[in-house]
């Protein structure tokens, strides 16, 4: 935990306190706002996990947006073809990991510039999904909301955490296990070593290329999960430009969360909260300030928080550089 519970993150505490205070004033509204926030947050958090997985092993992945878009499309397209959302889910995970592999081929095997590789994936995704998209298709159903018995009756936390669909729970599970895996397992140790100082890992007999391939592919699969969550659980449809820049916001959240799964989750939650409250301000019509101000609030807050907490964030050192054995 120590990577994550730094005093820099004290703002999380402030949010919690603020929420608690608001809850004491109006429970039901606050509950609904926070549960909305989680819905906003999860896809962002999952997208951030894609980035963390890759960058912790030294691969910059700027193609998250493209991965989300393509896999969301695959999920929708296959579900509607086969009228089976499970197949759709499988498809999106498969497509996600395929894009991961593509990134791995370009950046690990061909040692291409990784930002370029990611950009290629993004443009390709926009073009392909829009090109293959056929209107009028619909999916048989979406993943239903499943309220976890007992837990759902806990005031506040029930609605916020335990009244969602299966992909939501799965997503949370993935994030938590990624944290554990990264900091407690041998796989995590080796991955981080590869991301920080590949030649050390190499000289210790860890295959840099292999580990990078595996992790980037898994990251892609997580992107697939995020895409499926959007199109099969949250919305139940697909549109062009469906992911609306979440993949880029995720990059910010990843750095905001200092390449730590829990950090990124918190950052995403913070982001979701500001969005949900922005909506709430409109709903309650308390303020007569222009909507633009409300909508840019989250972004401004993010910058302010980072400026104050002066996150001298440190990226994995070997990130972005292809590994040449010879220079070991």
């Amino acid at each position, binding site marked *: 935990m120590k990577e994550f519970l730094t005093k820099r993150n004290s703002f999380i505490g402030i949010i919690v306190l603020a929420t608690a205070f608001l809850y004491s004033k109006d429970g039901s509204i606050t509950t609904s706002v926070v549960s909305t926030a989680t819905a906003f947050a999860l896809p962002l958090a999952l997208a951030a996990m894609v980035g963390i997985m890759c960058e912790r092993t030294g691969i910059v992945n700027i193609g998250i947006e493209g991965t989300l878009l393509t896999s969301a499309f695959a999920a929708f397209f296959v579900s509607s073809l086969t009228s089976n959302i499970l197949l759709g889910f499988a498809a999106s995970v498969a497509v996600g990991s395929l894009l991961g592999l593509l990134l791995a081929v370009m950046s690990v095997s061909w040692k291409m510039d990784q930002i370029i590789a990611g950009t290629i994936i993004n443009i*390709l995704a926009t073009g392909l999904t829009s090109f293959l998209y056929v209107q009028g298709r619909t999916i048989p159903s979406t993943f239903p909301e499943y309220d976890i018995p007992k837990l759902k009756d806990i005031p506040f936390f029930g609605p916020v955490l335990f009244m969602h669909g299966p992909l939501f729970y799965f997503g949370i599970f993935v994030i938590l296990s990624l944290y554990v895996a990264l900091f407690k397992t041998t796989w995590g140790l080796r991955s981080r070593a590869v991301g920080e100082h590949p030649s050390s890992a190499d000289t210790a007999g860890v295959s840099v290329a292999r580990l990078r391939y595996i992790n980037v592919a898994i990251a892609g699969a997580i992107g697939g999960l995020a895409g499926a969550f959007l199109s099969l659980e949250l919305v139940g449809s697909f549109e062009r430009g469906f992911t609306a820049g979440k993949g880029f916001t995720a990059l910010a959240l990843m750095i905001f969360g200092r390449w730590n799964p829990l950090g990124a989750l918190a950052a995403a939650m913070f982001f979701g909260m500001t969005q949900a409250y922005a909506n709430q301000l409109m709903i309650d019509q308390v303020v007569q300030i222009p909507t*633009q101000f409300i909508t840019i609030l989250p972004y401004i807050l993010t910058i302010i928080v980072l400026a104050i907490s002066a996150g001298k964030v440190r990226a994995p050192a070997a990130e972005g550089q292809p590994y040449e054995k010879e220079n070991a």
Partner: protein
Amino acid sequence: MTQTKKKSFDVGNWLIPMIAVLIAMTIAGIMMKIQGADPFSAYKTLFTTSFGSVKGFSATLGKATPLVISGLAVTIGLRAGLFNIGAQGQLISGALGTAWAGYTFTGLPAIIHLPIAILFGVFFGAFVGSIAGALKAYRGVHEVITTIMLNSIIMGLSDYLVVYHFREPGQLLTRTSEIQKSARLPILFGLPFGFFIAIALAILAWWVMANTTSGFRFETVGRNKFAAWYAGISVKRTLVTAMMISGGIAGLGGAIETLGVTYRFEPAFNAGLGFDGITIALLGRAHPLGIIPGAILIGGMRAGASNMQFVAGVATELVDLLMALILFFVTAPLVTRFFKNSGSKAVTGGWGN
């Protein structure tokens, strides 16, 4: 950097992209067939309209101009080790500033009005850029976050300003009044004047990076900020300056687009220009001159898109696909290997430094 300078004069560096482009176009052609359009007439249209006629070529250069400039903005950032995703926001603020100066000041001769309007654009772009720069240098906030956030902030803010303050009288749309005649960029030999500015700027940037002490400072900070610090280069100041210049250039892009093409500010007008800049910069391997051919090529495809759809029924998305394929084949060592076995070297450093 003596290295990079040699690169651009090496024949292989021109031949390989050519072949890469051909391969990309072949694949795109196959997709057109699948989609039921005729690739040959499509490409014929593309070339006759975008590169064949003076009118068409002028249109192409018109599209290429903002791409060259925003590509240049991103390139300058990359040189100093900064990944400026915020060209979009900087470009928009520049466009708005210029538009305001363009329609507010009346009765000025073009000689005075044009430069003033352009300066406004450069200033606001530079201002937004330097916010990210300062946050990076003095607070250690990563430029990728700040620029992504600033993009959204600028989007909302510019919109607020237009809706509540600068909106054209009696206008429903979110847009400003049209700029004065005196603030419009002329057409030179049937070609958009802005393009000449863009090229001049690219050459200047290349020369500065390769031959001046400032260029050397940028490069050094970009490659090893500790060595830079040891060598007595003010890392903080360099970071701020780099982002300021990068933003200023992006702002100039917005200015030229406003003064030469749109004649007013309207949010939709500048959509995506800054992001294309990233693609262009990478296509040009972050070389100030290297970005020009890429910009012209993509500009041509953008200019010819609707003709291809009208004449050959090609779906407009194919232009995006084509862009992706070209970037892929130009940068992937597939083609390169075929000639000399040189792995492509990275132009960006991740979020490191």
